[in-house]
């Protein structure tokens, strides 16, 4: 038995494998949400059922084995599997019901935006300080004095004062931080600090100081140059 059921099962298996494991690996793609995979599998199943019930003959060929399996009539050694399915199905239903109704034991999920949009006046500013070995060196000196306790002497976010802070201080050597940003963005973040973030940046959690009350703008621009140079990164440009 089961010859006519094998193909649909294999087909659903292939579709699931493609959606779950192949699609996310296509360049430019992303993992599909479970709800979407479920929808596709449902469509596939409906297609199979429609196809299998087109004629009376194919209908019998399709439902016959399912019916025999469920009623346990002349299925021989598959009887064990049948009992397994009949036992497992209510248990899965019970387990899923428990998971969806039991009160959550986890703290509220936090979807913090790491690089929220800057206020308009901070977009497109260019560094007014000339980039020379001298100014870069000055910037690195300011960085060592004011920034390195948290962001680290190696620009890796692992300074001696970093451990207690959540969110952790940015790691500038990571290509997804300052390398993705323009100098004007860094100027905003350094000047206004954590409390300058919009609500999606969760400003109440950030330990980044509001340096505008302590450092002149020129020092901040020099720190930015020192940061990029020290972390071996370049600012993002629009070309």
């Amino acid at each position, binding site marked *: 038995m089961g010859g006519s059921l094998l193909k649909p099962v294999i087909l659903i298996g292939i579709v*699931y494998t493609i959606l779950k494991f192949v699609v996310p690996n296509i360049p430019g793609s992303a993992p599909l949400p*479970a709800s979407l*995979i*479920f929808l596709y*599998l*449902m469509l596939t*199943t409906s297609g199979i*059922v429609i196809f299998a*019930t087109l004629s*009376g003959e194919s*209908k*019998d060929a399709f*439902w016959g084995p*399912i*019916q025999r399996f*469920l*009623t346990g*009539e002349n299925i021989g050694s598959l009887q064990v599997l049948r009992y397994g399915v*009949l036992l497992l*199905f*209510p*248990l*899965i*239903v*019970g387990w*899923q*019901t*428990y*998971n969806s*109704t*039991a*009160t959550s034991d*986890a*703290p*509220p*999920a936090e979807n913090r935006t790491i690089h929220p949009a800057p206020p308009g006046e901070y977009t497109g500013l260019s560094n007014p300080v000339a980039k020379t070995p001298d100014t870069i060196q000055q910037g690195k000196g300011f960085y060592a004095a004011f920034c390195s*306790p*948290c962001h680290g002497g190696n620009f890796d976010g692992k300074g*001696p*004062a970093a*451990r*207690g*802070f*959540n*969110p952790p201080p940015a790691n500038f050597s990571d290509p997804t931080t300052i390398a993705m940003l323009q100098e004007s963005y860094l100027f905003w973040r350094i000047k*206004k600090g*954590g*409390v*300058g*973030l*919009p*609500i999606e940046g*969760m*400003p*109440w*959690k950030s*330990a*980044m*100081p509001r340096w505008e009350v*302590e450092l002149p703008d020129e020092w901040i621009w020099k720190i930015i140059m020192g940061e990029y140079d020290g972390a071996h990164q370049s600012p993002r440009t629009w070309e």
Partner: protein
Amino acid sequence: MKHGLSKIATGVVAGVLLAMGFLVAEPVAAQEGIAVRAPMVKGSLPADDPNAAVWASAIPATFPMSPQVHWPNRILEATVRDLSVRALHDGTNVAILLEYTDPSEDPDDAAAIEFMVGDKKAHFAHGQPMAQVEGGPVNIWYWKNKDAKGVDMNAKGFGTLSVQPHQDVKAKGAYANGTWKVVFTRPLTTGHPEEDTQITTGGFINIAFAVWDGKKDASGELKEKGSQKAVSSWWYFRAEAPPDYSGYYYAALAVGLALGFQFILIRKLKKGQSA
């Protein structure tokens, strides 16, 4: 046999789809962040006894501490690097036990717990103003060794720290073997929701910590004082609600329904076969 087939087919399709939905469902989300969880205990809370045996019934949560570098006056190195926190409640009062290593007992050793007040988010540094978000005040529970008491305070911005006219917080410290244990106690709810954090069982609220090592340096100056202290970020606190078994009841009901579905389906199939 063919007659009842379409009805049965609908049932089988529904069952298969149902089962498939369960198989691809998202797993339960992994726990994020760290939270202090206060289980409910019967009998009185160990408000005056940091060494009481009942503390063992609370699971400790450990939080990393940083020297306070966020605003002047800063400190680049603080004594306390980790803080272990346990909590208990009895339905009326909450007791929170802070535990940390400090090589010496000093009169100016001090510790504090910070909460947000009301629904507005407050910055962890004394509820200082935020540029794009309207923040709320913080409620600070403070203890200093030489004062031997808890102080209930509020702040909304630097320089606004003030002692409340109504004091609801009690605190008691015990030093032994290079370790401080400090217990803070307060009613879960108070009559002053504008100043005091209100704790309802089952809900998560934000919590942060600060510790001062009251040791003096060679010149007689305190190493850590005022804004020069060890601090933590915001984490979570929850007074656990009494156990809720409704999830089990719903699960049992669902198992019963699934079994019934199977029973009726197979009975119908068998009837169809014999017809």
